[in-house]
């Protein structure tokens, strides 16, 4: 899931490597770490200042209640079933988790953009690359949950502020 989030944010899922290692596999540790180092070297230096907005949004996304709740419930939903007694399939769960992840991440990205002084929908769209319609849709959701507020108009353009 974290790799998907990194991919979504443009940071790149291959900045994170996962490996299974046992305590007897010393040579494998050397092989794995060399392979990871070569891979990261080929990707080049990671500029955290360039991605500061995306990193902040990713951090807030991972703190989001919905996401943490869903991940925590995975085992129960797949093994014992939901409150209606229906067992979920892994593919369906993953599809919904992907949707929730993307939505939460986009909301947090919009909020970070507003904090960084991109306060109109067009400015936000230019900074983060999301469509105007998607941003407006998510802004409505964010207003309901008190993440942002509508601050009025400057030159006939609606302006938003983060809460």
């Amino acid at each position, binding site marked *: 899931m974290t790799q998907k989030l990194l991919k979504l944010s443009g940071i790149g899922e291959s900045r994170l490597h*996962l490996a299974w290692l046992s*305590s*007897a596999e010393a040579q494998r540790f050397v092989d794995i770490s060399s392979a990871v180092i070569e891979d*990261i070297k080929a990707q080049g230096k990671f500029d955290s200042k360039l991605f500061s907005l995306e990193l902040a949004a990713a951090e807030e996304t991972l703190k989001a209640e919905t996401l943490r709740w869903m991940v925590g419930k995975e085992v129960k939903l797949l093994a014992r079933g939901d409150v209606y007694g229906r067992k979920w399939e892994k593919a369906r769960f993953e599809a919904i988790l992907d949707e929730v992840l993307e939505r939460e991440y986009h909301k947090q990205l919009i909020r970070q953009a507003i904090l960084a002084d991109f306060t109109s929908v067009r400015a936000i769209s230019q900074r983060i690359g999301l469509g105007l319609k998607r941003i407006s849709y998510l802004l409505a959701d964010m207003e309901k949950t008190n993440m942002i507020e509508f601050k009025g108009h400057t030159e006939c353009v609606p302006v938003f502020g983060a809460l």
Partner: protein
Amino acid sequence: MEQVEPKIVAFLCNWCAYAGADLAGVSRLQHPSNMRTVRVMCSGRVDPLFIVQALKSGCDGVLVAG
């Protein structure tokens, strides 16, 4: 232009991956030194937040081995 060595944060689980790395050291196997290891008691302890915070603090990549 000389390539800068990448900094990689490795979260290693104490019983498995860290012991494996320790064995590699004891057996004098040559391995590159760009790994900054963080020993955790279980790889399940690694919260996704750790990974983002590692990237924020300037590393170029993260390895989680369990």
